[in-house]
C-alpha cells in the first residue's frame, strides 16, 4: 500500500542517531521519544533527509529560535528535496516573511502584522462563530460523526478564504494543495519537485490575483497587491509567496489545534465535564491545549559551520525545531506531561519564539476559542467511539485527521 500516509522510509530503531519525523512511532506518539532524547541526547542527529539535527530541550530550542545568525529560515520544511544554495532567493525566501532572514524579514513582517493584530482578528469572530454553528447544525441528528473531518478542518480554511477574499467553495481545493506541500515530505526528491512544479497552487493563486487586480476588494489579497515596501509595490513573487504562506500556515495548523483539543476532551471526560461546568476556565484551557498539543515543529538550515551544544553543525544541515517538545520540558513546565486546564503559569512556545513568532497567533487563538465554545455549547457530552480509528498527521504539523466521536445523551444546542 502506498497511500499518502504510508512512510517511504525504513522504520527507526535508534532515535538518537537515526530519527525521522515521518516514522509511524513519532506520528502516533512523539512525546516518549522526545522525553528520552531530552534526558539522554538533547541534540540528536540523523543522516536522513541529507543530515538533520533535533534539539528537544526548551533551552536549546529557544537558543536556536533566537539565533538568526547561525540558523537561516530560508527553508522551513524538512524534506528529501533539500534546496541548493542558489535555489532560495535570499533574503526574501519563497514565502516571506517565514522564509526571510533579517534584515528583510522585519520589513516583510511589519507589512502583515497590522492585519493580524488583536483588533482586526476580533472583527472576524462573528464570521467564525456563525461558521462553527453552521457546521455543528449540519451534524444534528447524527449519533456519531468525525469531529476532525466534519468540524475542525473546515474552520481555518474558511476563515482564511474569507480573509483573502477567495470563494468559500474552494476550501477543499486548498486542503489538497497544502497536503502536497507539508505532509508528503518523505517521498523521493524527484516526486517532490514534480509536485511543486505542477503549479496547481501557483495557478490557482494567480487566477485569484488577476480577479483582484481587475476588481479590488476590501481583503488581504488586494491589500498585498497595493502594499508598498520602500516606496515600491511588492514583487509578484513576494505577493504570491506570502499568499501561499497564509494558506499553508493558517490552515493545517489551526485545524490540528482544534482537533487535538476536541480529541483531548473526548478522551478525558473529567476535563470535559469541568470545562462545561466552569466555562470561565476556557482561556487557560485553550493555552494548555496549545502547550500540550502544539501542532507546529518548525525547521531551520544551518547558515554557517559552527558548534552548537558540542555538536558540529555544518552549513546546509537541516535542524528540526520542535516547539511541541519544548512545551513538554519538565525544566520549564511542572507536570509537563499532564494536561492541567487551569494551569496559571504557562509560557508555552506553541507559536514559536523570537522574530518568527506565528504571525497568526491571535487568529489561531480566536478560532480555537470560538470552535471549543460553540462545540461544548452544542455537544457537552461526547466521547471517541473508536480510539483505534484516530489518526494523526505526519510531518511538521501534528494533529488528528480523523476523530470518530459518539454524541452522548446530554444535548443542549
Amino acid at each position, binding site marked *: 500500500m502506498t497511500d499518502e500516509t504510508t512512510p517511504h522510509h525504513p522504520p527507526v530503531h535508534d532515535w538518537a542517531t537515526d530519527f525521522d519525523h515521518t516514522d509511524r512511532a513519532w506520528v502516533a506518539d512523539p512525546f516518549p521519544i522526545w522525553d528520552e532524547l531530552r534526558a539522554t541526547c538533547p541534540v540528536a542527529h540523523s543522516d536522513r533527509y541529507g543530515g538533520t539535527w533535533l534539539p528537544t530541550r526548551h533551552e536549546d530550542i529557544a537558543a536556536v529560535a533566537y539565533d538568526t545568525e547561525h540558523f537561516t529560515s530560508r527553508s522551513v520544511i524538512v524534506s528529501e528535496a533539500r534546496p541548493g544554495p542558489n535555489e532560495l532567493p535570499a533574503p526574501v525566501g519563497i514565502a516571506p516573511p517565514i522564509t526571510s532572514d533579517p534584515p528583510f524579514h522585519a520589513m516583510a513582517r*511589519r507589512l502583515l*502584522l*497590522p492585519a*493580524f*493584530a*488583536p483588533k482586526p482578528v476580533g472583527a472576524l469572530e462573528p464570521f467564525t462563530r456563525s461558521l462553527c454553528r453552521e457546521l455543528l447544525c449540519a451534524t444534528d441528528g447524527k449519533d456519531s460523526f468525525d469531529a476532525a473531518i466534519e468540524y475542525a478542518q473546515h474552520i481555518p480554511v474558511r476563515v482564511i478564504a474569507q480573509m483573502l477574499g477567495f470563494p468559500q467553495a474552494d476550501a477543499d481545493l486548498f486542503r489538497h494543495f497544502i497536503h502536497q506541500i507539508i505532509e508528503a515530505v518523505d517521498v523521493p526528491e524527484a516526486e517532490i519537485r514534480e509536485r511543486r512544479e505542477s503549479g496547481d497552487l501557483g495557478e490557482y493563486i494567480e487566477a485569484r490575483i488577476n480577479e483582484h487586480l481587475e476588481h479590488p476588494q476590501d481583503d488581504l489579497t488586494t491589500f498585498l497587491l497595493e502594499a508598498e515596501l520602500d516606496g515600491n509595490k511588492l514583487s509578484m513573487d513576494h505577493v504570491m509567496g506570502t499568499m501561499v504562506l497564509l494558506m499553508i500556515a493558517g490552515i493545517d495548523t489551526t485545524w490540528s489545534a482544534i482537533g487535538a483539543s476536541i480529541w483531548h476532551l473526548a478522551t478525558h471526560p473529567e476535563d470535559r465535564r469541568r470545562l462545561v461546568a466552569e466555562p470561565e476556565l476556557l*482561556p487557560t484551557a485553550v*493555552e494548555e491545549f496549545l502547550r500540550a498539543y502544539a501542532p507546529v515543529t518548525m525547521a531551520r538550515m544551518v547558515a554557517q559551520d559552527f558548534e552548537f551544544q558540542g555538536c558540529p553543525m555544518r552549513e546546509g544541515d537541516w535542524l528540526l525545531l520542535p516547539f511541541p517538545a519544548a512545551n513538554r520540558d519538565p525544566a520549564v513546565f511542572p507536570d509537563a506531561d499532564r494536561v492541567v486546564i487551569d494551569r*496559571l*503559569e*504557562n*509560557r*508555552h*512556545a506553541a*507559536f514559536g*519564539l*523570537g*522574530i518568527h*513568532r506565528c504571525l497568526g*497567533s*491571535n487568529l489561531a*487563538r480566536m478560532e480555537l476559542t470560538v470552535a471549543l465554545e460553540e462545540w461544548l455549547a452544542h455537544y457537552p457530552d461526547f466521547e471517541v467511539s473508536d480510539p483505534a480509528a484516530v489518526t494523526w498527521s505526519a510531518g511538521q504539523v501534528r494533529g488528528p485527521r480523523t476523530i470518530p466521536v459518539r454524541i452522548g445523551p446530554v444535548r443542549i444546542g
Partner: protein
Amino acid sequence: MRVQVDSNKCQGHNRCYALAPDLFEVDDLGFASAIGSGLVPPGMEDRARAAIANCPEYAITIED
C-alpha cells in the same frame, strides 16, 4: 508594584494584553507596552503576576 515590557524581547504574543488589559496595551503591530508608568493599582497584583508568568519571551519585569 510596577510592570515593564522590554521592547527588545516582546514579539507580540499578546498574552499580557489578553490577561491584563488594564495594565498593558498593544500597538497597531501587536507589540505590548505597560500602560502609563506601569504602576499596578491595588488589587491588580495577581493580574500583573499572571501576565509575567505567561510571557513566552520573558519580556515583562516587575519592580516592587
